[in-house]
């Protein structure tokens, strides 16, 4: 009786209708996000095309053992982590610095112009940026030509490994500074003016105000942004590491990251079990890190946790 009443009730109809509105997204997520998750079993098999993925033999952790015992594992993991640490530390520091300085500019119109211009690199795809980089350090590049003219000879940027770590960090920060600084700028906007006014009455200089008001009050935001980035520390921006170095093999020791490694293994050697294992390694580490970083945020500053 009660069941019948509920089934024809408005509440039930409402639930159904709301669910139907969400249905396309649910199906898409199921197919493109959850089904692949089920496919992680591939990492534990040695796949051959004859038997297909369902009939190929199970090999337990052999794919992982093979990967970790090879030089590759250390190399690509080190690269991925090292680059991300550089991106997070230098990138955050510069973004915060820019945000603070933007707030110190007196002509408001200038601030808008700066923000618009700084945002440009965000709209370029990595392929376009690769063209731009090429126009600077390619065989006919602006910088290459200048170097040649002042007597440094012909320098092939694309085969010298030592410049690339710094170069890639520089390029990545250039591309992201515009929009990351805006996040912190918005944070600064949220700080009540009363603090600054009170400090001014007490005779504080602008620098003192930044040190004692702006930075401490920005710290929660900086913390949460940093922790989000740390959660992604095993993931690299594929476009940056694939296109900018123009896929030059000699540069792999400094430009190969986990993402490009998995891609190249899948397309190149075709060892599906192995590339799947490396991918699973990345996803698992990433997942654990997000849990850990969120746990830390909860302890440090409960209001800022992600979930």
């Amino acid at each position, binding site marked *: 009786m009660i069941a019948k009443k509920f089934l024809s009730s408005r*509440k039930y109809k409402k*639930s159904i209708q709301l*669910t139907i*509105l*969400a249905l*396309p*997204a*649910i199906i*898409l*997520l199921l*197919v*493109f*996000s*959850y*089904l692949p*998750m089920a*496919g992680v079993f*591939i*990492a534990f098999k040695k796949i051959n095309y004859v038997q297909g993925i369902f009939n190929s033999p199970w090999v337990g952790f052999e794919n992982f053992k093979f990967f970790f015992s090879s030089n590759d594992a250390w190399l690509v993991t080190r690269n991925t982590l090292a680059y991300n640490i550089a991106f997070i530390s230098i990138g955050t520091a510069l973004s915060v610095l820019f945000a603070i*300085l933007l707030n*110190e*500019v007196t002509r408001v119109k*200038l601030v808008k112009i700066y*923000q618009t*211009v*700084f*945002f*440009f690199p965000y*709209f*370029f*795809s*990595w*392929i*376009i940026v*690769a*063209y*731009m980089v090429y*126009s*600077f350090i390619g065989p*006919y590049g602006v910088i290459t*030509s200048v170097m*040649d003219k002042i007597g440094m000879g012909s320098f092939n940027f694309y085969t010298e490994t030592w410049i690339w770590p710094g170069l890639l960090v520089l390029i990545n920060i250039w591309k992201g*500074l515009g*929009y990351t600084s*805006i*996040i912190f700028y918005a*944070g600064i906007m*949220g700080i009540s003016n009363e603090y600054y006014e009170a400090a*001014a009455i007490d005779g504080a200089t602008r620098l003192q105000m930044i040190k004692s008001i702006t930075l401490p009050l920005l710290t929660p*935001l900086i913390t949460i942004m940093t922790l989000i980035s740390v959660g992604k520390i095993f993931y690299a921006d594929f476009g940056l590491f694939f*296109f900018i170095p*123009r896929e030059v093999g000699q540069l792999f020791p400094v430009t190969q990251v986990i993402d490009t490694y*998995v*891609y190249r293994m*899948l397309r190149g050697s075709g060892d599906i079990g192995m590339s799947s294992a490396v*991918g699973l390694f*990345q*996803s*698992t580490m*990433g997942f654990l890190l997000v849990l850990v970083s969120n746990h830390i945020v909860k302890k440090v500053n409960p209001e800022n946790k992600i979930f």
Partner: protein
Amino acid sequence: MKKKVLPQIAINTVFIIFGIACIFPLLAMISVSLSNETDIIKNGYRLIPKTFDFSAYIYVLYKPIQILNAYKVSLFVSIFGTVASVLVVSGIAYTLSRNDYKFKNPLSFFVFFTMLFNGGLVPSYILISNYLHLKNTIWVLILPYMACPWFILILRTFMQKIPVAIIESCTMDGASEYRIFFQIILPLSKPGLATVGLFTLLQYWNDWWLSMLYIDKESLVPLQYMLYRMMKNIDYLTSSSNMMPPGMKAASLPSESARMAMALLAVGPMLFVFPFFQKYFIKGLTVGAVKE
């Protein structure tokens, strides 16, 4: 009392320098595309071309089959993808924004767990290629990005601000959820929809990943992927689909400048469009990070 400020000259200098660094590379590309090819080979790229030479553009635009086709693909994918994606995302965002929705918590978890863990490239690749048979179809360029959890989150935040009273009074009047959604919620969410729409448009327009993985049919190559192939393969330009304009000799083919010209033609239009909508991108970025 004069307000104390930090030295403006120093700050503005820093910003002007970085501002130049942001625009400069684009100008360099433009300059190369307008340079004479022999000048390039002899002297390298310059910031201002020694001799203005439009032959790169003449070459690219003479029978621009390649680039026109790539434009067709990119435009269709971007526009259709954005419209479809915004509808899909707003649908689930609305459902999740309703506190009285029965399955709110499980559904939230369902959506946002995908941001924490993914199956990796290999299972996705096998699924899409061998089981869904989406390789070399136009849909493989659209479907994978249609339900993006981050956009669902942004829109949900926007929609949560709509007063419950409005929805309740509609329900009281006997309106179905579909009616409420299309006639009330969507119009009220225009800023949020614009934000998500623009992010989505940018994502589709700039994407090369899906085509790199799943497209090898010439007729389905979108702009960014075309540029990638051109970067790898200098001969790509001289392939049969590009014809020589009358008067141009094969020996003096403007390959370097033509590549830059192609690149500019491929992305130029969008680079003009997106900066105008910058405020929406900023809104989207700050909604997630800063509690209003």
